[in-house]
């Protein structure tokens, strides 16, 4: 299982990209913002794409009564996410090594992938909850109270994935480099599973 072990190690190491690159990116363009405002969401916090973007997004959001964009210390996620990702990288590397030396079989690889997928879905679910809360839980004394045609208060929840028009803004929400590295890494662990499956069979065949 030499090849599979190496791929497993590489795959899980790619998750380290999340410490350097954003997981997600949300861009806000409008007629008055030919250069759109943007925020990059890292597992460790939220940063503006340009130096003053967060301040300027908050400045605009105060008209519609949205809370300011959370700082790192305002959300438990930014403490837990790095621990979870770090733990999964360590686990993946250990499993990969054990696989490399034939101590564990390929099912451990797919097991890692399944655990990572569950954690990832939970993370997305949590992210969506936050977006919903942030976009709908508005200051009752907001300067501008916009309503839908049916009279219900308008939600400013950005899309979880994709494009949406919100008032004068064009909002784009897409995964960023960190997420792509993670996807590639996870695909590699699946590949490691299939290669490991072949290599394991050979090994079992050779020993019997």
């Amino acid at each position, binding site marked *: 299982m030499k090849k599979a072990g190496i791929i497993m190690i590489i795959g899980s190491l790619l998750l380290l990209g999340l410490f350097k690159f954003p997981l997600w990116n949300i861009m806000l363009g409008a007629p008055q913002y030919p250069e759109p405002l943007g925020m990059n969401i890292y597992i460790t916090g939220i940063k503006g794409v340009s130096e003053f973007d967060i301040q*300027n997004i908050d*400045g605009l959001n105060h008209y519609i009564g949205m809370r300011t964009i959370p700082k790192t210390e305002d959300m438990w996620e930014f403490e837990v996410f790095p621990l979870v990702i770090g733990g999964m990288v360590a686990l993946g590397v250990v499993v990969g090594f054990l696989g490399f030396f034939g101590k564990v079989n390929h099912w451990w690889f797919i097991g890692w992938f399944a655990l990572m997928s569950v954690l990832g879905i939970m993370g997305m679910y949590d992210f969506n909850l936050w977006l919903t809360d942030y976009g709908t839980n508005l200051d009752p004394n907001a300067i501008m109270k916009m309503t839908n045609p049916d009279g219900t208060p308008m939600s400013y929840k950005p899309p979880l994935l994709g494009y949406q028009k919100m008032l004068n803004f064009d909002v784009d929400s897409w995964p960023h480099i960190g997420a792509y590295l993670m996807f590639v890494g996870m695909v590699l662990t699946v590949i490691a599973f299939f290669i490991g499956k072949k290599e394991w069979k050979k090994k079992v065949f050779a020993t019997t």
Partner: protein
Amino acid sequence: MKKSINSLLMLALLAGLITSCNNSKSNKNGDRGALASSAAEKVYVAPGEHDEFYAFFSGGYSGNLTVYGLPSGRMFKEIPVFSQFPTNGYGYSEETIPMLNTSHGFVPWDDLHHPDISQTNGKLDGRWIFVNGNNTPRIARVDLETFETEEIIEVPNSAGNHSSSFITENTEYVVAGTRFSVPVPQEDIPINEYKGKFKGALSFISVEEETGRMDIKFQLMMPGFDYDLSHPGRGKSHGWFFFTTYNTEEANSLLEVNASQNDKDFIAAVNWKKIEEYVNNGGGTKMPANYAHNVYDHGTHNATTTMKKEVLTVDPTKVPGAVFFLPTPKSPHGCDVDPTGSYIIGNGKLSADLTIHSFDKMIDAIDNKKFDGEAYGIPILSFEDILAGTVKQAGLGPLHTEFDGKGNAYTTFFISSELVKWNIETREVIDRQPNYYSVGHVMIPGGNSAEPFGKYAVSMNKITKDRYLPTGPELEHSAQLFDITGDKMELLLDFPTHGEPHYAAGIPAEILAPKSKKIYKLEENKHEYAALTSGDTRVERDGKEVHIYMSMIRSHFTPDNIEGIKVGDKVYFHITNHEQDFDVPHGFAMIGANNAELLIMPGQTKTLYWEPKQVGVWPFYCTDFCSALHQEMQGYIRVSPENSNIELSWSLGE
């Protein structure tokens, strides 16, 4: 005198002949058929797209500098330099009032003539643009990241600062020559003692490489002629500077006749490297002087004035081999050096010919001491020895020449009202195009450097008459844009310019646009009275003086209710714009203020002075439509009688 009037009459007749001849060649009514549509395409910059060049036009008697785009001819900005500018509070705000200080006190206006962009190795580098104030002699440096005036230095012993503000090949110096000669030092003497007693100061102002800071290195005290225009040598002639003179007759009255008698005036060739060396070795005489040096700091957002008390003067006869006179026909105006630095072109404004001096021949004549007499101890070279050639009958009244970097020169002719293209080596006229009307200077982007961008030429005209819809007796001046990429110059566009542009400087947009500043960073704001957070806002009284530390952000002032101000107080509004977003300035206007408004850029602090004179509750508001709630951006100040006991208080949202 009779003879000169006759010759003037003849000039006028000739002018009539030549212009009528031009008119028959090309119809001035703009009916250009298929040509017109191709010209329209060449100047059309589609909505949202950008121009290829910035062009900085001097404002003449507006005292300011205007920024245009080429080829569209659209005006982008007016940069206040020597004139108070109520539009943004320049020269009215406490921070910028010192910019207009001089030895004559506060001078809120000037006559701005010749912009020149900084260079490195003779090429435009786009760090700064220098301009001259003609009336109360001053040189200003405008920063090309902020497009704001950063520094103004007064030039002592000078009057009519006209042969300015031209820079040397590496921006070592910005040079300022006096148009009027004056007694140096000034004294109470009869005017008719002019001859021999008056001096013409040519000032070499050093420019600090990193900061651009200016300092008068030395003043060359020349004979009492009128120094009209100047240009630096470049390439092989780097180290020299050339100044046109008129009134070598040294007349002090009725100059239009008395200063037009000599068949030839001079171009003064100054070897400034030699004088620099002389000065660095302790040469020159320090003389008492009094002149203002005003510097604006983008950190403190404040200008300060320093009065300087001394200037170093140099007697040209004390530095052998440094100054020579090149005889040049008929009161030359422009004195232009071609991009290679080989030719010095004298535009004798009362002549029909152009005189081209050869730098090599000049050096040769100097080396062989072939002098043709001297004036006030300065050697005069012989006209024939240094002449490269003349452009014969090129037009009437040549004023100024610019270059395209492809071996061609473009000369404006004021009297015959045309732009003439000619070949520098063969000195043959290639093309001539009429100008509407009476062109002064011409500008080709980089046309006054070693590397011109020879795509467009803009002529700046002195007379407008019927070019645009009439606007009463007073008109803006007209400019005409030519495509100069072909053999023939093609008129593309005709557009009005603000004030009276005497010259302009153009530069490719790609050099300036990427570094143009968008905001001032609040965290870098070092203003003494800044309120960097809303928590810093407050009102403090010190006797009659009241300082209001105020902040502004969309869409409110903090504080916006202030009480405890009394009639007779001296109130200073120190207002900091807390925005950090591009193009979100806020304005500030106080009812009854005797100065102007403030327009405050993001991150900036500005101060307005106000004397409350009447009891009551008086409003202030934001003048810049900053947001959907701009109209809500307002506040009140309660003004109580002088003897009232109302305590100072301030609030927001209570």
